[in-house]
C-alpha cells in the first residue's frame, strides 16, 4: 500500500513538473526587469514554502511524540525535517544563483538570507544531535525539544523581513499582499508548489519506512547483545 502511494505521488509530481516546465520555459514571457533568470522563482519560492511548512509539521509531529511517546511520531518528525532541510538547501542554492545574476554576487549578508542560513545551521545541529544519541527514547525526546526551539527561531526568520531593512525582493505573491505577478505568471508557481509538496510527501514516506526499519534493526541488535 505504502509503495503504491509513493509511486502514485512520484508519478503525478513528475507529470505536473514536466507539464509545468513546458509552460515555464516556452509559454511564460521573460520578466520585464530581470529577464529569463526570473524563472528560478518557480523553484525557489515553492521550495522555500515547502521547507518552512515541513519544519512546522515536523515540530507538530515532535510535539505529538512528547504527548504520546510513540517512536513512530519521532521517525515521522525526523523524516519531515530531513526532507525540509533538503528543500531549504535547494532554496538557498537557487537564491544564490539568482543573486549572482541580479545582484552580481553569490551571497550577501542580507538579514533574510542570514536568517535562512541560521535556520539551516540549526537543523544541521538537529541531525548532529540525533546522531550523537544512541538511546531511541532519549534521542526522540531531545530532538523534539530542539525542534520546538528551532521552530521558534523560524518565526524570527519570517518576521525578519519586516524587522530589518533588507535587500531581498519584497513579497510578490498575492497571498502575501504583493500582487506583483501577473496571474498567467503566478499559476505555474502554484503548480510547481503542488508538485514539490507531492515529491516531498513521497520522500517523507520513504524516509519514515527507513527510520522504522532502523528502529527494528537497533532493537534486534540490542536483543542479540542481551544474550
Amino acid at each position, binding site marked *: 500500500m505504502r509503495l503504491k502511494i509513493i509511486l502514485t505521488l512520484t508519478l503525478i509530481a513528475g507529470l505536473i513538473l514536466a507539464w509545468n516546465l513546458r509552460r515555464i520555459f516556452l509559454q511564460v514571457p521573460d520578466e520585464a526587469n530581470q529577464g529569463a533568470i526570473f524563472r528560478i522563482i518557480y523553484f525557489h519560492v515553492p521550495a522555500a514554502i515547502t521547507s518552512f511548512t515541513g519544519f512546522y509539521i515536523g515540530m507538530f509531529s515532535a510535539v505529538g511524540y512528547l504527548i504520546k511517546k510513540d517512536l513512530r511520531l519521532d521517525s515521522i518528525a525526523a523524516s519531515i525535517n530531513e526532507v525540509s532541510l533538503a528543500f531549504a538547501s535547494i532554496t538557498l542554492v537557487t537564491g544564490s544563483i539568482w543573486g549572482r545574476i541580479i545582484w552580481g554576487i553569490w551571497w550577501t549578508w542580507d538579514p533574510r538570507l542570514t536568517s535562512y542560513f541560521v535556520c539551516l545551521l540549526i537543523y544541521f545541529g538537529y541531525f548532529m544531535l540525533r546522531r550523537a544519541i544512541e538511546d531511541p527514547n532519549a534521542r526522540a*525526546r*531531545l530532538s523534539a525539544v530542539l525542534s520546538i526551539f528551532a521552530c521558534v527561531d523560524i518565526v524570527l526568520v519570517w518576521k525578519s523581513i519586516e524587522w530589518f531593512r533588507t535587500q531581498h525582493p519584497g513579497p510578490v505573491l498575492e497571498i502575501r499582499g504583493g500582487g506583483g505577478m501577473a496571474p498567467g505568471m503566478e499559476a505555474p508557481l502554484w503548480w510547481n508548489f503542488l508538485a514539490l509538496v507531492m515529491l516531498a510527501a513521497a520522500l517523507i514516506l520513504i524516509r519514515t519506512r527507513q527510520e522504522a526499519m532502523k528502529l527494528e534493526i537497533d532493537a534486534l541488535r540490542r536483543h542479540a547483545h542481551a544474550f
Partner: protein
Amino acid sequence: MKFLRQTLAIAAKDLRSEIRGKEAVNASVSFALVILLLFSFAFDLEPEQIRDIAGGLLWLIFAFAGTLILNRSFARELVNDCLDALLASPVSGAQLFFGKCLANYVLIIIVECVSLPVFAIFYDVRLPQRLALLFLVMLLGTWGITVIGTMFSAMTVNLRLRELMLPTLIYPMLIPALIGAIQLSRVLITGGPLAENFIWFRILVAFNVIFTILALALVEIVLVG
C-alpha cells in the same frame, strides 16, 4: 516563594562550588584574554574603525568565553552521579534549571565585567558616557546566552561530544540575541542615535522572554523524560 527559595539554593550551591574551585571562571577569563590578544593580530585598525566594530568584538568575546562556563554547568554534576541525586531531590527540573541559569548568569557577568575594561584599555576604546545603558544591554544579551546555553547544556550533558555539540547548537540559536546586543553596543559606543535602534531592545527582550518560558516549560522533559 518555595520555588524561588529552592532555585536560589541551587544557584548558591553552584556559585559556592565555583568560588571554591574557580575552574570555569578562571578558564573563561583566560580564554577571553586570549581572544583579545588574537584580535590584535587579526585586525590592524584605526581607533575610529575599532570603535565601529567594538560591539561585535565584545559580544564575540562574551559568547565564546561564556560557553566555557555553560559547558561546565551540568557537566560538573556528572562526577559521583550528582545529577541523579539532584533529580531525585525534592527540586523540580524547572527549579534546577533556573537555579543553574542564575549561577551561570552571575559567572558570565563577572567574566564580562573583567573583560570589558581590559578590552577598552587594549584597544583604546573610550567606554560610552551612557555606561549604564551598555550595562543594561550586557544584562539583556547575557540572559539570552545563559538561558539557551544552560538549556542546551542540560540537553548535551550525557553526550560523549558535549564540548563540541554545545557551541555548534547554541551559536546559531543565539544569532537574533547576538545581533541585537551587537547593534545596541555599537550604537552606544559610537554615540549613535538610540531611538532609531529601539527595535533591538524589543528583539532582545522578546528573545529572552520567549526562550525563558520555553526552557522552563520543556526542561523537565529534557532532564527527567
